[in-house]
């Protein structure tokens, strides 16, 4: 049994224009200690998937169905349908999160020491001194110099990269089993990005954590992840190990994504290609293949094939694809 198993997760938002199916039946597993990258464009549902089962979406006008089973010290629990009070005992303890913009993710009026100590105190009935020592220990670990002094500093006195380090330290306060990193490097300079990714890898080994790395940057994925889930239009469209995915991408969308970034292992002078068209509106999305309108290989299929949605199929060991091009391959449950 995996650490976290997501089964047929669906998230719908009621809006004045109609129902937005932000996540339309996502199923995946997260094993202890692995890094799973979730990749996709803006609006593909990659962030919403994870915010949903963490109970961090606004509750009114949002419908969440499916099941998300998490192994905790108290046994297995289903995060969907938990009361907010039960769920908040899991948040920050079993599952911690860091976010895209460390500039705004820390409270501007409290010192980082206060914020770190608070994260520990909420899940542990211990003396403040213990929490304080823990905070200093973790600040040292994530590479904040003079942590003892810096505890009294406010977020605006840190650079973007340092704030993200503080956020990581905060996430680690309670030894979480899962760390959800939602675009952790998107708002940072490229050199700082590399440092933060290295830090994430190091602490993952040290803390034996599973990491869900949400990103739109396949360059980040290549160096950091074990396995990749590609999302499109609120669905999982391809899932494979990193090496498999980069060597043998199958879904035309994944191929398009890889063609749109520069790669060291491909010939010089090769032009980067963008995927034509726009991501689909999640309100109007019908029964057909969500990617059909932008698909470069649609013509290889008999007409009308793309009017039905393809199923997620295993086309190789540990390689799942949702695409009609591979319809002849064996179907998984």
């Amino acid at each position, binding site marked *: 049994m995996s650490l976290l198993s997501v089964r047929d997760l669906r998230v719908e938002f009621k809006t004045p224009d109609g129902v937005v199916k932000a996540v339309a039946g996502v199923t995946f597993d997260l094993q202890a200690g692995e890094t799973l990258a979730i990749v996709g464009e803006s609006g593909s549902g990659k962030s919403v998937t994870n915010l949903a089962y*963490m*109970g*961090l979406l606004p509750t*009114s006008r949002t419908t969440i169905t499916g099941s998300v089973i998490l192994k905790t010290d108290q046994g297995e629990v289903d995060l969907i349908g938990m009361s*907010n*009070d039960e769920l*908040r*005992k*899991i*948040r*920050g*303890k079993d599952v*911690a*999160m860091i*976010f895209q*913009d460390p500039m*705004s*993710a*820390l*409270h*501007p*009026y*409290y*010192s980082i020491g206060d914020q770190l100590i*608070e*994260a520990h105190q*909420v*899940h542990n009935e211990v003396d403040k001194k213990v929490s304080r020592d823990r905070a200093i220990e973790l600040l040292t670990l994530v590479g904040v110099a003079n942590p003892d002094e810096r505890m009294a500093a*406010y977020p*605006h006195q840190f650079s973007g990269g340092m704030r993200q380090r503080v*956020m990581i330290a*905060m996430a680690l306060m309670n030894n979480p089993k899962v760390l959800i990193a939602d675009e952790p490097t998107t708002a940072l300079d490229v050199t700082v990005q590399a440092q933060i990714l290295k830090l994430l890898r190091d602490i993952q080994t040290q803390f034996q954590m599973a990491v869900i790395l949400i990103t739109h940057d396949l360059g980040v994925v290549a160096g950091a992840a074990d396995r990749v889930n590609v999302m499109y239009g609120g669905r999982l469209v391809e899932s494979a190990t990193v090496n498999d995915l980069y060597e043998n991408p199958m879904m035309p969308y994944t191929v398009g994504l890889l063609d749109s970034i520069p790669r060291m292992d491909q010939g010089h002078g090769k032009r980067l290609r963008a995927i034509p068209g726009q991501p689909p509106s999640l309100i109007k999305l019908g029964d057909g293949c969500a990617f059909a309108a932008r698909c470069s290989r649609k013509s290889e299929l008999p007409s009308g094939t793309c009017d039905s949605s393809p199923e997620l199929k295993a086309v190789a060991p540990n390689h799942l694809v949702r695409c009609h091009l591979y319809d002849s391959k064996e179907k998984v449950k």
Partner: protein
Amino acid sequence: MNGLVAYISRRIGITLLILLAVSFTVYLIFALLPYDPASLTCGKNCNDPGIIEANRKRLGYDKPFFEQYWVFLVGLFAGRTFGEGAATIYCAAPSFGYSFQQHACVTDLIFDAIPVTIALAVGSLILWLVVGVGLGIIAAKYRGKIWDTLSTAFVLIGTSLPTFLTGLILIVFLVIKVDWSPFPAGGYTAPDEDIGGWFLSMVLPWVTLAFAYSAIYTRFVRSQILEISTEDFIRTARAKGLSDGVILGKHTLRAAMAPIVTMAGLDFAGLLGGAILTEAVFNLPGMGRLSLNAVVDIDLPVIVGTTILAAAIVVIMNMILDIVYAFIDPRVRV
């Protein structure tokens, strides 16, 4: 900490300069008004040029403008003597001048009036902060529910009823129509004479003022809380596993405090200059009524005094708010 001291000294310096500019501007307007201050000292139908000229000399209106202003400024700090010999009038510092119509130093008139206004302003401030912030929190917490709708109704009524109407409604339905009403229909009882009577004479004015303000604050606090609830750092607080109460009380309200304190401070400062309508309706002898009567009677020295004081209170309150801000928001202390 050095940054904080430097910041405060800088703010105080700027405030002193602004106060000087404010007093000069008010005095200039006073000099430019199409009234002869000396003639006004002599009452209606007084055409005796001898008396007018004697008063002009006595009050210093015969001097050039800049000298007059200088003497006025010095009087603020050192007190001021009007006239010579037996008819000498002395107004102790801070002297805002002498009202010939009321035969009193302006400062003494202000000192009589300001305790009433302070009592009115402080009492209603407390009342409207409790009601406004409380209802604002409730409305934000139960957004879209019945409590929110009820508070919206309250906001609409509170913001659309003018204070003089609210005051009159209260007087009619709580005093005149009720035989056993403990409240007087108006007038002021000094607290050192009868503390209970003072309290009862202030309740309806407090409620009247607070009604209008708490409606505005309810709406403001509600929108502040809803806006801050969408901030990333609130999502972080939820991701930490904090309870809703801690998130609201510690994280959201802390961030909402700065604009609420600013607004409350400025509204309070404005009220200290006089709540003219409320004081008029309840016949309270405060700054508002002093100013109103001075305007009606064209009692120029009183108008100058109350105007400068009201402006000074707002300027000083701005300074205090800037300093308080530095304690609320660490980013300001740079």
